[in-house]
């Protein structure tokens, strides 16, 4: 395919810095047997208030009923994997922040755990505890965004503001720890970049005491609201075998009834020392594996994360927050490669790192949970209404930064 040359409609701006081009975009044709003259092809385009980022959904509708959905992604592709081959192992950490920017700590965690496995490096105890505390707090923050934006999609505006009010307190803690509110770059290969002071530990305790009753308030406001249940129960049901075939992980898989959480089933870091439950979807209001179950799993997981943070804070030992003697240059042995997976708020994030013995990784592949989860949307969107499609996309809780990397 050759690059299409600009047509006669192209013109350069007056200051010469921008070019406007008119290009005919070829329409990707539908298979002929699906073509029906009554259908309308609608673009829930890249800019849309409820597609959670720059996602384009080409929706073929028959009135209000959706016949087919084709997601088009790549609008936020920032060449993470190509960059990571140039910046060296420690330099990749800020890039991982920007993938799933709502759960940046968990992304960092996944990456540094992978590199440490490659190097067979042991991390100090205090650093491990700090990592768990921070990762679980970020899980709460991420689920709060999922909760707030999902409510917004369904039409209730108020829970969004409540969720962000709680999130502000978590972000204040993070700002004290590492200076940033969204993309933290907190983890280092061998530990974390800064210690948690007693003041911060106090703030964490206060936040947990403040937050746990709020979950009941959100339940009263939204979870048992008849209209919300009508909108989400029975919508977008994913059968368990379909979920496993598509590689669905995270809260979506637990909503289908499967008790699978990498923190319990394939523990990394020190998660095997903490006691917490796995909320599962039970199909209380609709069917098992519907949007309501996915929503409730995330709500209940916030309470479980609070438990983990409390235990980690209690057990926090004194010590180093990073390995005292770090190697000058991070250079895993030639030919070493490893795949490590961690549980982010959206599912299983895996890093496959291939090393060639130099200071730059040879290949870093990210198995992104949202990328995988989003692939199921065309399969479960036959015959739903347009409003249901919004509910389904919201319940998958996608972050386009992670889908596109």
């Amino acid at each position, binding site marked *: 395919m050759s690059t299409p040359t600009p047509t006669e409609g192209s013109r350069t701006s007056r200051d010469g810095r921008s070019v406007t081009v008119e290009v005919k975009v070829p329409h990707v044709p539908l298979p002929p047997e699906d073509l029906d003259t009554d259908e309308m092809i609608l673009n829930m385009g890249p800019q849309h208030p409820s597609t959670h980022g720059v996602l384009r959904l080409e929706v073929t509708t028959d009135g209000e009923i959706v016949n087919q959905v084709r997601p088009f992604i790549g609008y936020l592709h920032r060449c993470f994997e190509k960059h990571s081959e140039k910046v060296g192992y420690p330099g990749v950490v800020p890039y991982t922040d920007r993938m799933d920017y709502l759960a940046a700590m968990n992304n960092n965690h996944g990456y540094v755990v992978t590199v440490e496995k490659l190097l067979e490096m042991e991390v100090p105890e205090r650093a491990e505890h700090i990592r768990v505390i921070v990762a679980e707090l970020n899980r709460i923050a991420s689920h709060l965004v999922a909760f707030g934006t999902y409510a917004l999609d369904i039409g209730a505006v108020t829970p969004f503001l409540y969720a962000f009010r709680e999130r502000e307190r978590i972000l204040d803690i993070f700002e004290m720890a590492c200076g940033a509110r969204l993309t933290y770059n907190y983890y280092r290969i061998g530990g974390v970049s800064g210690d948690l002071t007693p003041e911060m530990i106090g703030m964490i305790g206060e936040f947990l005491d403040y937050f746990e009753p709020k979950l009941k308030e959100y339940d009263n406001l939204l979870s048992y609201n008849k209209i919300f249940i009508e909108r989400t129960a029975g919508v977008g049901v994913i059968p368990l075998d379909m979920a496993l075939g598509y*590689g669905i992980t995270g809260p979506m898989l637990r909503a289908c009834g499967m008790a699978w959480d990498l923190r319990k089933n394939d523990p990394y870091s020190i998660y095997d020392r903490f006691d917490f439950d796995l909320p599962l979807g039970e199909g209380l209001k609709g069917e098992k594996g519907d949007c309501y179950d996915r929503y409730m799993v995330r709500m209940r997981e916030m309470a479980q994360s609070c438990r983990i943070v409390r235990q980690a804070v209690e057990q926090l030992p004194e010590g180093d927050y990073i390995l005292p003697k770090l190697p000058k240059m991070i250079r895993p042995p030639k030919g070493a490669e490893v795949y490590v997976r961690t549980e982010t708020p959206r599912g*299983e994030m895996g890093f496959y790192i291939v090393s060639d013995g130099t200071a730059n990784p040879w290949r870093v592949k990210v*198995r992104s949970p949202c990328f995988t989860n989003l692939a199921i949307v065309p399969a479960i969107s036959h015959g739903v209404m347009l409003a249901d499609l919004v509910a389904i996309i919201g319940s998958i809780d996608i972050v386009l930064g992670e889908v596109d990397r």
Partner: protein
Amino acid sequence: MTPVEIRDRVEGALPGAVLRLETEAIDPWLLVEPARIREVCRLLRDDPDLAFGSLMCLSGVDWPKENKLQVVYHLHSIERGHRIVLKADMPRDEPRVPSVESVWKFANWHEREAYDLLGIVFEGHPDLRRILLPFDWEGHPLRKDYVYPDTYRGITNKP
């Protein structure tokens, strides 16, 4: 099951498909003949003792010095708890491998990504087109010999 047992089981059912087993790596891997990868995967999924119901990750890796493109499959069994890695090597100028989309639907988008970024053609894939890059992009960026273009649709990155 250990990697050796897995290799033996696959050898027993599909002789000649597994070219090599490497147990010294952190994740032991099997090198599989590219043309038979789909049968091997189907066996791994359907055999009740192997029960590899999940494909964890599908990546493409470029090795220009050895003149090969490699597809790496990380498999995992939820029931049995074992993991294995499959690798398939192809010549760089003819990178064709059967698609495993019919075995695990997971592979659908990940194979599209490998095609998009590395140019590996997956035969039998229902909808092999670019996923992350625009439909009319030239080249496969993740290859080691990729040259960054100067212009795209008339937009240039030179001042």
